[in-house]
């Protein structure tokens, strides 16, 4: 139940960010689904570490975005950004600063490290998937060329 609740919340957030980024029409609807998808993967119960969850969520969002981009002939960014924003560890950043000011240095270091790790996980997930997609299209293009000969 809470999972459903949070997925819907992410969906609404992605929709709102889509509006703020001037996305329009059916692209707006599709871009909000990427937020829901990311949240769903992030909340999968068998994943222990938040960084791994974020990595997988970022992979899922990128796959979704690349497919939508192909289908609608639209830049993938349109579908990526809305989905990724709820994953960005803004809270970690805040807690890190907060603990630092409170004088809890070890706590600050831990949260800071986790925040960096999570931000990195988003990046690595995105790079992995979009590189694989690029590879796929390149291979298809070459196959088509060979076929034509």
């Amino acid at each position, binding site marked *: 139940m809470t999972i459903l*609740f*949070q997925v819907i*919340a*992410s969906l*609404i*957030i992605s929709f*709102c*960010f889509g*509006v*703020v*980024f*001037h*996305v*329009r029409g059916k*692209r707006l609807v599709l871009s909000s689904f990427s937020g829901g998808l990311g*949240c769903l993967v992030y909340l999968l119960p068998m994943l222990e570490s938040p960084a791994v969850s974020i990595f997988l969520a970022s992979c899922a969002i990128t796959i979704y975005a690349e497919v939508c981009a192909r289908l609608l*002939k*639209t*830049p993938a*960014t*349109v579908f*990526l*950004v809305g989905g*990724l*924003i*709820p994953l*960005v560890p*803004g*809270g970690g*950043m*805040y*807690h*890190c*600063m*907060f603990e*630092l*000011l*409170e004088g809890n240095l070890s706590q600050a270091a831990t949260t800071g490290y986790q925040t960096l790790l999570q*931000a990195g996980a*988003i*990046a690595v997930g*995105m*790079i992995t998937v*979009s*590189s694989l997609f*690029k590879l796929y299209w390149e291979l298809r293009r070459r196959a088509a060329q060979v076929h034509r000969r």
Partner: protein
Amino acid sequence: MQANRIIHLAAQMGRMMLENGGETYRVEETARRVCDAFGLTGAQIYATPTALILSVTSGTGESLSVMERIYSRGVNLDKIDALNQLSRTIEAQGPDVDAACAMLEEVRCRRQRGNPVLVLFSALACAVFPLLFGGTLYDILPAFIAGALVRISSIFLSRIRLNDFFINVIGGVIASFTGWLTVAVGMGQSIDAITTSAIMLMVPGLTITNAVRDIASGDLLAGTSRLMEAFCVAIAIACGTALAYLIIAALGGGLR
């Protein structure tokens, strides 16, 4: 003469893309596609988040180059999409500079959502965030207010041309301060959830996305400068919350 107009058309399209949050490789690809469509093959294009350089050799063997400096970087994914389509249309329809310029002007004048809409939806996004950050239903209204205030302040401050770093510092202050104040008067329950929700508005989501996509496609300089930009935003927000913390401590309150 023709080559001159084409290179300016390509440069304007590239510029508009960079100003609205397009990835570097897409900008270069778009400009190249336009040049190719008009028969200016072998165009050299170099784009970074702050400048765009184009250089072509015209049919008579002259070298032409244009440089566009980019000062403002906003986000308008609708325009990115439209420009992307435009470059494909130019490619498909064949060379007609006048028609292409007219279409570019159409994209430039595309209707944008007004500021009230942006404020409303930013605030709505913030209102939902507490549910993900362990807040309660009581935190929704305070987060809505905090989000609206952060967005209004950033719109206003960028209008008077304050630099981005300072805009985010002030955003951080407003987020923390609203969180503290609403809890102090008994409106909200979790300072933490409210503040973090408002901070999420300033988080550089698109910048990180583009930085990663740039680096993945080999635009190292553009990628690293975007990463640096994202990092600066994070630092600015942290500075803002720190400042608010100190002010609140001086007023005799605490954020815990």
